[in-house]
């Protein structure tokens, strides 16, 4: 059976429910479902939520075999919480745990050991990288079902619709008080916004906060309220500040990235959307940051003021907010120390949950009003489909993130990527895996020309004035093939048991399956 993105889907996937195939960008839920809830729990007067250790917290929640726990990824590659909690769970001898986390990073490679010994038997995440990604790609069947890859908005939807039921959310928080009011704005492990944690705390059956800055006073404003919190555990360190938030991110010096950024900025400038009141999401990658710098210069020069920015917020955007180039900034994830300071001090810098950000089954995620977004890609194809989860060898090494959410919701979705990486052309006949359907992508910017989705004749007309080399996507591919030749397709296992992961589209339909390369 083929879905609307042209991907061949198996009729049956081991360990998973029967999925509806992807049918298009905005398919409404098949039937109305009430928002998920949780069991009412009563706190007695003068009771104490603070427990001496994670082992005691695990005991207090009654966590047992077969349950689902969650983490957030605001500590990025500096996260210690996941490991601290898994160590406690393993010490209790609990097995068959599903981890439904907002994302995973290189620092989570240790999970391999817990998969090997049966402590963890299922994973649901936005991203998979490093040794863990490689291990899972090569060893399907180590888990009881394929990994479920969701976008940030898709995860919020699945949790609120009751498709993902978190039994215990273990949320690392950089500062909290003895009642459980928590924030990411303060403390030695400050990470800024707690956008993903806000969602888990609101919907999980039970919530355990893990902090390295438990204060005796009162935390306000708080991102997680005490009414959502069952237990609190203080530990030595919840993360490595170096890995949590970098200092101000340096603008790239890589000439190709600068060239790409300049071209992307020109696309925005001439797109027809670049005018007073426009909104944007820039992202935090090397190229995206450089695009931001060029856009800032153009805004100052042409005296254009934007309305709102969304992110993934960097110090650069915080600076633009400070300068009055934007009215307000919605922050679901804060990337660097400058942006964290801005969230703390600038009332126009607003913290939002991942549901407020991108949940497609809500009356209005903020991204529904986005004009322009800048996105990366590991590869694209002739139908403009985008892969950001596997590399050219079929290895899991990326993250779905908000990619497919903002591409679908925005008016102008721009992919920025080099045409060739190493000697591999990045415009394929068919991408290895689809994370973002081509019908939601408008422009692909490369170092050797740009291609506009033929559905957007209006953009093609507008961009003629930009001075950029506009080509068809087929022509772009041809340029790459002339330089490095056409690569052979890698061979994937066709067997049902060799499905490594599935890509769930933001509306819960099945977009693609990731198979083991042979």
């Amino acid at each position: 059976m083929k879905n609307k993105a042209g991907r061949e889907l198996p009729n049956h996937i081991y360990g998973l429910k029967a999925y509806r195939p992807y049918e298009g960008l905005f398919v409404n839920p098949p039937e109305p479902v009430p928002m998920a809830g949780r069991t009412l729990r009563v706190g007695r007067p003068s009771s104490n939520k603070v427990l001496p250790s994670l082992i005691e917290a695990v005991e207090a929640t009654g966590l047992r075999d077969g349950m689902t726990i969650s983490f957030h990824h605001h500590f990025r590659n500096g996260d210690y919480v996941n490991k601290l909690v898994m160590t406690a769970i393993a010490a209790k001898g609990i097995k068959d745990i599903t981890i439904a986390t907002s994302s995973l990073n290189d620092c989570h490679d240790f999970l391999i050991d817990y998969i090997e010994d049966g402590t963890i038997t299922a994973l649901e995440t936005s991203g998979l990288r490093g040794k863990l990604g490689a291990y899972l790609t090569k060893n399907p069947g180590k888990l009881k079902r394929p990994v479920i890859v969701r976008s940030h908005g898709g995860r919020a939807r699945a949790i609120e619709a009751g498709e993902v039921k978190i039994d215990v959310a273990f949320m690392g928080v950089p500062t909290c008080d003895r009642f459980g009011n928590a924030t990411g704005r303060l403390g030695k492990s400050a990470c800024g916004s707690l956008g993903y944690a806000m969602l888990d705390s609101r919907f999980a059956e039970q919530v355990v906060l893990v902090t390295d800055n438990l204060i005796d006073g009162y935390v306000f404003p708080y991102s997680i309220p005490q009414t959502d919190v069952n237990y609190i555990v203080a530990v030595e360190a919840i993360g490595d500040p170096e890995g949590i938030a970098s200092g101000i991110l340096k603008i790239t010096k890589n000439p190709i990235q600068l060239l790409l950024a300049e071209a992307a900025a020109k696309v925005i400038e001439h797109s027809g959307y670049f005018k007073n009141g426009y909104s944007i999401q820039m992202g935090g990658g090397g190229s995206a940051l450089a695009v931001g710098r060029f856009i800032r210069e153009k805004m100052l020069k042409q005296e254009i003021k934007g309305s709102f920015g969304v992110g993934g917020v960097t110090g650069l955007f915080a600076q633009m907010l400070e300068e009055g180039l934007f009215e307000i900034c919605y922050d679901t994830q804060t990337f660097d120390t400058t942006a964290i300071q801005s969230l703390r001090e600038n009332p126009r810098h607003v913290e939002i949950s991942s549901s407020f950000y991108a949940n497609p089954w809500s009356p209005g995620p903020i991204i529904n009003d986005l004009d322009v977004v800048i996105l990366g890609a590991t590869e694209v194809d002739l139908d403009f489909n985008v892969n950001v989860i596997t590399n050219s060898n079929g290895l899991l090494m990326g993250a779905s993130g908000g990619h497919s959410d903002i591409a679908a919701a925005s008016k102008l979705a721009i992919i920025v990527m080099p045409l060739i990486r190493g000697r591999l052309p990045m415009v394929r006949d068919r991408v290895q895996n689809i994370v973002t359907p081509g019908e939601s992508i408008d422009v692909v910017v490369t170092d050797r020309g740009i291609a506009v989705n033929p559905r957007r004749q209006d953009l093609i007309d507008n961009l003629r004035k930009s001075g950029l080399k506009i080509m068809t996507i087929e022509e772009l591919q041809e340029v790459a093939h002339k330089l490095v030749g056409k690569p052979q397709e890698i061979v994937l296992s066709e067997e049902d048991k060799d499905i490594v992961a599935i890509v769930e589209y933001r509306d819960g339909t099945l977009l693609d399956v990731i198979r083991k390369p042979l």
Partner: protein
Amino acid sequence: MKTIQKEATVGFEEKNDALVTVSPLTAGQGITVELVSSVKRQYGQHLEDLIVATVNEVGYTDVHVKVIDKGAWDYALKARIVAALYRGNAA
């Protein structure tokens, strides 16, 4: 047909480059190839053909060519192979 007298190495194990080692074989063995490449899945056959074709082109035989490739483009790989053969043939 020319042959090389000694083993010679050219290039680097760096991105977009290749480390090429040629070593002499006894007469009549022709050209043998040993390829390690970061893009073997995508370009393996193409690279092996290119290596043999390049050695033939400059008129050498009875040589073993070992290539550790990190995604070199064709012109770079050819240059490395030719240079290695010249070095192996130098007095």
